[in-house]
C-alpha cells in the first residue's frame, strides 16, 4: 500500500483547515443533503464529506458508513487532495497498486470504487473531498464527475460562509461582553445605591452599595419583594405610591432622611425612574439613592456661617450708622464754635492761642470728612444702583463747582474733555468722579500747580473715563495698595485725607460692574481710569 502522501504546503493547508473551525462539529442538515445527493447521483451506497486532518480524515457528513473518522495513511482522500484541480477516480482498487492491499479494501468497508472531488478553498487549499464509494468496481460517468465537482465546490462555499458567520458572531459576542462589563461597572462601582424593581415590586437587581447600606446579601433581595425589606407600613404609605408614579412614567425625585441598618440615619436623595422597553412599555423602575448626609452637613454648616456673617455685617452696619450719626453732632458743635473763635481779636493776643485753635479746627474738619466718607461707604453697602442715563459732562461741571475751593487754593487747572452719556447711578458716579479729581488736585508736586484732565473713550463696549494729573505719582511698589481701605501713603501734614476715597470709588465702579485702574509714574503723575461696561442694550 502506498500511504497517502503529505502535500508540500501541508502546514498552510492545516492552518486553513483549523481556521475553518469545522472539525468535530455536529452534523448539519445542509451537508447531509449534499452527501445524500452525491450518493443518489453517483448511485453509490456510500458518500462522504471528508476533511483531511493531521493523522486522520474526519467526516463532516456521511451516508452508508458508520465510522466518524479513519486514519489518514490509508485514506483515499489523502491522495485526492494532492491535486486540487482533479477528481480522483479509482475504478477498481484491487487493480490499483496504491490501494490493492489497503485495509479499507481488504476489510470493511471493502472499497472497490472511489471517486473524490477535492474541496478547495478560495485561496487554493484542498482540505478534503466530497467522495462516493462503492463495494464493486465501476466507472464514473462524465455527468457524475461534473456533479461531484459542483457539490465539492458547494461544500467549500458553505464552509467558508460558516467560518465568516462564526467569526462575526465571535466579534459580536466579544463586543457584547465588553459592553456588558462597562454596564456592570456603571452599576456596581461607586457609592450610589442602585436597584431595579419590576412592576410586581420585586427586586431584579441591586448593586453592592445597596447591599452595604442594607447589610444584606444579594440572595436576600434579588427576586424578593420590596415590602419584605422595608415592612408593610412603610411600603404602603411611602414607597409604593412613589414606585407607582414611576411605573406610570413619571420621574420621581425627593430628599428624605432614612435609617439604614448598615449606617443609621442618613440624608438621602432618592429617585425612581421609569425604565422603558423597546415598544415603549415600562419594564420597571430604576431606583437611585444618593447619600447626601455629608453634603447636607456641609450645607448646614455653610448656612450657619452665612447667617452669623449676615448678623455680624448687620451689626457692623448699625454700629457705623450709630457712630456716624452720634459723632456728627459733637463734631459739628466743635467745628461750629471753633470756627467762631477763629479771628476773635481777643484770642489773637494770647500767646499760642491761634496756633492751638488751628489744630482744633483742622482736627475737627478731618473728623467731619472721615464721617462723610464712612457714611458714603455705608450707603454703598446698602443701596442698590439706581441706573439711569447720566451726562458725564453735566456731572463733571458739578464736580468742578464742588471743588472750586480746592482748585482756587491749589492754583490748579481742571480740563474737562468731551464726555459721553453713560448709564449709571448719578449720585454714585458723582462721588466717584469727585474723589478721583479731588485726589488729582491734592497730590500735586510742591511748586507745580496741578493740571488735571478728565477725558473719555469707548473701548470694547466699555466707557473709560480717565483722570490724569501731573502730580507726585505713586512708587511702583505701592500702586497696588492705593485702593485699600484707610490706606494712606503720606503723612497728614503732607496730604490731608481719610484714606477712604479710592476704596469708595472702587466700590462704586464695582457696583456698576466696572473697576478703577491706575497707571502712574513716580514724580511725573498718575492716571486713574474708571471703566464702566456698557449694559447689554
Amino acid at each position, binding site marked *: 500500500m502506498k500511504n497517502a502522501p503529505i502535500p508540500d504546503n501541508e502546514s498552510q493547508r492545516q492552518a486553513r483547515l483549523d481556521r475553518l473551525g469545522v472539525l468535530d462539529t455536529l452534523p448539519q442538515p445542509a451537508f447531509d443533503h449534499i452527501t445524500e445527493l452525491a450518493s443518489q447521483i453517483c448511485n453509490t451506497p456510500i458518500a462522504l464529506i471528508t476533511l483531511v486532518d493531521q493523522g486522520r480524515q474526519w467526516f463532516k457528513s456521511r451516508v452508508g458508513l458508520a465510522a466518524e473518522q479513519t486514519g489518514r495513511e490509508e485514506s483515499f482522500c489523502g491522495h485526492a487532495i494532492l491535486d486540487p484541480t482533479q477528481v480522483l477516480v479509482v475504478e477498481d482498487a484491487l487493480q490499483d497498486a496504491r490501494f490493492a492491499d489497503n485495509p479499507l479494501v481488504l476489510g470493511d468497508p471493502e472499497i472497490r470504487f472511489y471517486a473524490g472531488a477535492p474541496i478547495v478553498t478560495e485561496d487554493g487549499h484542498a482540505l478534503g473531498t466530497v467522495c462516493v464509494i462503492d463495494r464493486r468496481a465501476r466507472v464514473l460517468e462524465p455527468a457524475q464527475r461534473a456533479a461531484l465537482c459542483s457539490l465539492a465546490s458547494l461544500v467549500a462555499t458553505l464552509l467558508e460562509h460558516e467560518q465568516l458567520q462564526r467569526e462575526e458572531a465571535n466579534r459580536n459576542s466579544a463586543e457584547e461582553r465588553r459592553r456588558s462589563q462597562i454596564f456592570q461597572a456603571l452599576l456596581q462601582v461607586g457609592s450610589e445605591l442602585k436597584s431595579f424593581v419590576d412592576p410586581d415590586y420585586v427586586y431584579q437587581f441591586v448593586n453592592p452599595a445597596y447591599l452595604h447600606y442594607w447589610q444584606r446579601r444579594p440572595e436576600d433581595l434579588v427576586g424578593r419583594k420590596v415590602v419584605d425589606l422595608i415592612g408593610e407600613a412603610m411600603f404602603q404609605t411611602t414607597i409604593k405610591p412613589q414606585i407607582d408614579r414611576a411605573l406610570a412614567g413619571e420621574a420621581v425625585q425627593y430628599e428624605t432622611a432614612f435609617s439604614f441598618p448598615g449606617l443609621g440615619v442618613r440624608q438621602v436623595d432618592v429617585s425612581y425612574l421609569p425604565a422603558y422597553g423597546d415598544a415603549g412599555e415600562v419594564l420597571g423602575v430604576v431606583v437611585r439613592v444618593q447619600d447626601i448626609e455629608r453634603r447636607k452637613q456641609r450645607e448646614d454648616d455653610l448656612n450657619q456661617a452665612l447667617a452669623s456673617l449676615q448678623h455680624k455685617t448687620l451689626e457692623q452696619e448699625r454700629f457705623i450708622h450709630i457712630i456716624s*450719626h452720634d459723632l456728627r453732632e459733637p463734631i*459739628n*458743635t466743635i*467745628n*461750629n464754635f471753633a470756627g*467762631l473763635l477763629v479771628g476773635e481779636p481777643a484770642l489773637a493776643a494770647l500767646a499760642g492761642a491761634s496756633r492751638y485753635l488751628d489744630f482744633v479746627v483742622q482736627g475737627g474738619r478731618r473728623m467731619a470728612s472721615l464721617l462723610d466718607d464712612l457714611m458714603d461707604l455705608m450707603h454703598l453697602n446698602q443701596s442698590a444702583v439706581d441706573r439711569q442715563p447720566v451726562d458725564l459732562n453735566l456731572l463733571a461741571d458739578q464736580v468742578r463747582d464742588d471743588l472750586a475751593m480746592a482748585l482756587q487754593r491749589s492754583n490748579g487747572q481742571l480740563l474737562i474733555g468731551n464726555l459721553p452719556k453713560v448709564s449709571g447711578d448719578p*449720585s454714585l458716579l458723582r462721588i466717584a468722579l469727585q474723589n478721583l479729581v479731588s485726589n488729582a488736585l491734592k497730590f500735586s508736586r510742591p511748586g507745580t500747580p496741578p493740571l488735571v484732565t478728565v477725558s473719555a473713550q469707548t473701548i470694547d463696549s466699555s466707557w473709560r473715563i480717565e483722570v490724569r494729573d501731573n502730580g507726585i505719582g505713586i512708587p511702583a511698589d505701592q500702586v497696588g495698595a492705593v485702593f485699600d481701605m484707610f490706606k494712606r501713603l503720606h503723612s497728614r501734614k503732607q496730604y490731608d485725607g481719610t484714606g477712604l476715597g479710592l476704596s469708595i470709588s472702587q466700590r462704586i465702579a464695582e457696583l456698576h460692574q466696572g473697576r478703577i485702574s491706575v497707571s502712574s509714574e513716580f514724580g511725573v503723575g498718575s492716571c486713574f481710569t474708571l471703566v464702566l461696561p456698557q449694559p447689554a442694550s
Partner: protein
Amino acid sequence: MTYQRFILIDDNEADNVYHEIMIRRAGFEGEVLVFESGIDALAFFQKDSLSAPTCIFLDINMPLMDGFEMAEQATPLLIDKPSVMLLMLTSSGSPADRERAGTLPVIKGYLIKPLDVATVQKLMSAGA
C-alpha cells in the same frame, strides 16, 4: 414780606446757640425763639396767632417727638399760613430723610447743618 421772627426747634442747645449767632450775624435784629422739643413748639403754635412772618428751622432727630412727627402735627396750624416758612435743619444727609421731607407739603425746604450766614441772608432776601 420780611421775616419778623425766627424759630429754632432743636434739642441740641449748642446748635441753637450757634444758629442764633449765625442769624444775628446775617443781620437779623428781630425775635429769635428757641424750643428744645417739638412738644413745646407745638404748644406755642397753638396759642400764637402766627400772623407775623416767621421762618422755622426744625431738627429731625429729637427725643420723644422727632421733627417729622412735629411737622405732621403742626400741619393743620401752619399749612394755610403763607407768612410761615418751615424748613428742616438737620445733620442727616440721608436720602431717605430728604425724601420723607419732600412728601410733607408743610415742609418747604431741607438744609444740612450747620446753618451759615450766607444761607440765612439768602432766606431773608427771598422772604423780603
